[in-house]
C-alpha cells in the first residue's frame, strides 16, 4: 500500500514511465502494471474464485491498453479507471462463459437487489449473540453494500471513484454508504474493552 502511494505521488517517475509506455517500451508497461497488480487481483477475486480466469483477465486488460497506447489519456493508469475496466471485463466474460452458477459463491456481482441488513440477520437464528462482531456483520451485507465497503475501506477510494467503478451516481454512492455505515453501527459492538487493554499495554 505504501509503495503504491509513493510511486503514484512521485509525478516525475510517473511522467517518465508514461512517456516510455507511449513510446512502446514494454518495461514501462510492466512497471505501470506492477503498481496496480495486487489491487486489481484482489478486486477480481471477489467476482470469481478462478485464479486463472483472473490472471487472464488482468493480462488482457493491460495488453489492450498497450495496443491502444497511442490513443490513451493519462487517466488510463489511475487505479479507479483500471478497476472499472476490469470489473466490466469480468462481468462481461462471466456472462459470456455462462459462469452463472458461480454467482452464488462470489462476494460481489452486478446484481442490483439490495435488501437491508436486518432482513439478512432476521433470517439467521443465532443472531442476537454473535452478530455484534464487525466481520460477521459485513459478510451479512448485501453484495452491493459489501462492494461499497470494500472499495471505500480496503481499496481506500473516494466516493466519486466508487461511483465510476460501480456505474452509479455519486449521490447514490454516498446515500448507500451512509445507510450501510448506519446499519452497521446499529448492531456493531466494537471490541472496546479489548482496545482499552491494548492502550494500557502501549502506554
Amino acid at each position, binding site marked *: *500500500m*505504501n509503495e503504491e*502511494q509513493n510511486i503514484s505521488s512521485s509525478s516525475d517517475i510517473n511522467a517518465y514511465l508514461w512517456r516510455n509506455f507511449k513510446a*512502446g517500451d*514494454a*518495461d514501462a*508497461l*510492466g512497471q505501470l*502494471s*506492477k503498481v496496480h*497488480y*495486487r489491487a486489481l*487481483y*484482489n478486486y477480481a*477475486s*471477489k467476482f470469481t474464485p478462478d485464479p486463472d480466469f483472473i*490472471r487472464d483477465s*488482468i*493480462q488482457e486488460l*493491460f*495488453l489492450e491498453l*498497450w*495496443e491502444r497506447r497511442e490513443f490513451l489519456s493519462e487517466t488510463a493508469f489511475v487505479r479507479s479507471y483500471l478497476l472499472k475496466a476490469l470489473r466490466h471485463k469480468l462481468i462481461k466474460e462471466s456472462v459470456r462463459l455462462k459462469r452463472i452458477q458461480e454467482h452464488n459463491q462470489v462476494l460481489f456481482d452486478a446484481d442490483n437487489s439490495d435488501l437491508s441488513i436486518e432482513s439478512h440477520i432476521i433470517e439467521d437464528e443465532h443472531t442476537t449473540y454473535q452478530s455484534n462482531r*464487525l*466481520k460477521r456483520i*459485513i*459478510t451479512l451485507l448485501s453484495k452491493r453494500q459489501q462492494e461499497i*465497503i*470494500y472499495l*471505500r*475501506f*480496503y481499496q*481506500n477510494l473516494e466516493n466519486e471513484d466508487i461511483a465510476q467503478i460501480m456505474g452509479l451516481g455519486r449521490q447514490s454512492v454516498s446515500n448507500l454508504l451512509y445507510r450501510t*455505515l448506519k446499519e452497521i453501527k446499529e448492531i456493531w459492538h*466494537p*471490541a*472496546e474493552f479489548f*482496545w*482499552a487493554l491494548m*492502550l494500557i499495554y*502501549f*502506554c
Partner: protein
Amino acid sequence: MHNYHSYTVEDLATDEMFRSWVIDTTSENSAFWNRWLNENPDKAGLIGQARELVLEVHEIYKDDLSPEMIDFEIQEITRLADLRKREQRNILSFFAHPVRRAAAVLVLAGTLGWMYYSGQSLKTETASAEAQPTVSIEPMIVKTNHTDKDMTVLLSDNSVATLMKGSSIRYPKTFGERNRSVFLTGEAFFDVSKNPQKPFLVFTNETVTKVLGTSFRVKAFDEDNTVMVLVKTGTVSVYQKTEYESLSEKTEREVSGVVLKPNQQVVFIRDQNRLERGAVANPNLLSESSLHRELVFDEKPVTEVFEALENIYGIVIVYNAAILSECVISAQFNDENLKQRMNAICQAIGASYDMINGEIIINSKGCS
C-alpha cells in the same frame, strides 16, 4: 498536520496516515498515534472502532497472491507486449515495401478470382494468413510431474528441463525477446542452449538463477528449508530474489549474486535468508537422471536409436523414416544428457534438430 479532532470513524479509517499505522505499524507512526491518544483520551473509543474497521475489512478481503506470482505475471505481460509489438511491426514493414504491397493485392485478386471459379470459399483464410505473418500470442504452459519417474520437458529454445517427482514448472510456449524465464517449484535439472543475448532465468520462491547456456540443477521444494543450485557445466549466477529485484531497474545485475563454476553448489537457507557456496557433495545430482545411464548402439539404424530415446525420456521425436532409412550409427552413451545425445547423433548423420511444441523435430537430407 491534520486536525484529527473532528474526524469521524469513517474519516480515520480512510486516512492514509492512520491506515499505515494500523496495517503496517512502525515505531514512528505508533509513537505519533500513542502520543495523540494520550493527549486525547476521549477519542480512544473512536480510534478503536476505526482501527477495528480497517483491520476487519482487511481480514475479510485479503488475498493469497505472493510477490513471486506478481513478478511472474508482470514478466508475462511485458513478454506478451513485446511479442505484440513485433507482430505489429512485422505486418507494417511487410506491407511497407511497395513490391510486396503490390504482391499482396495480386494475391488477394488471385484469391478472389480463384474463389469465383472454384466456387468455394474455404481456402480464403489460408490465403490471407499467408499474406500476414502473424506471431500468435502464446499462453503459459504448466507441467507437473505426478509420476514416480523423471519427466523430460522440451523448451522452445532447445533447452531441456528434467523434472523430478512432485515438481512443477511454468514456462511460455515461446520465449520473449529479452530473456528466457521459467518458474520452478520442486527440483529440476536444466540443460540450457547457449544464447548470450537472451539469459535463461530460473525463478524459485527465494532465488533467481541466471545462465547464458550451461547445465545445472535447481532444488527448491516448498517444504524444504533450503534451495540448492548445483552446476555441471558453464557459469551460473545465483541471486536472492529480493536482491535481484532491487537490481532490476539498474541493470547492474552482473556485479552481485554468487557466481558458480562447474562442480560448485550454492545453498540458500530459508530461515537465515542467506546464500552459502561450496563444492557439490553428491555427484549424482550433476546428471539429468540416474535412470538414463548406459546405452550402447552398435551399427544400428538411427530410427531405432530415436525410438529408444523416445521410450527412455517419454518424448516424441518427429522424423522422416524414409529419408533416414540409410542412416546407421554406433554410439555409446554413459552420463550424457538428452541434448548431448541428440547433438552427437545428429552430428554423426549430418542432421540438425529443433524443439517445437515439446517435440524434437529432425531436419535431415538423409545419408548415402
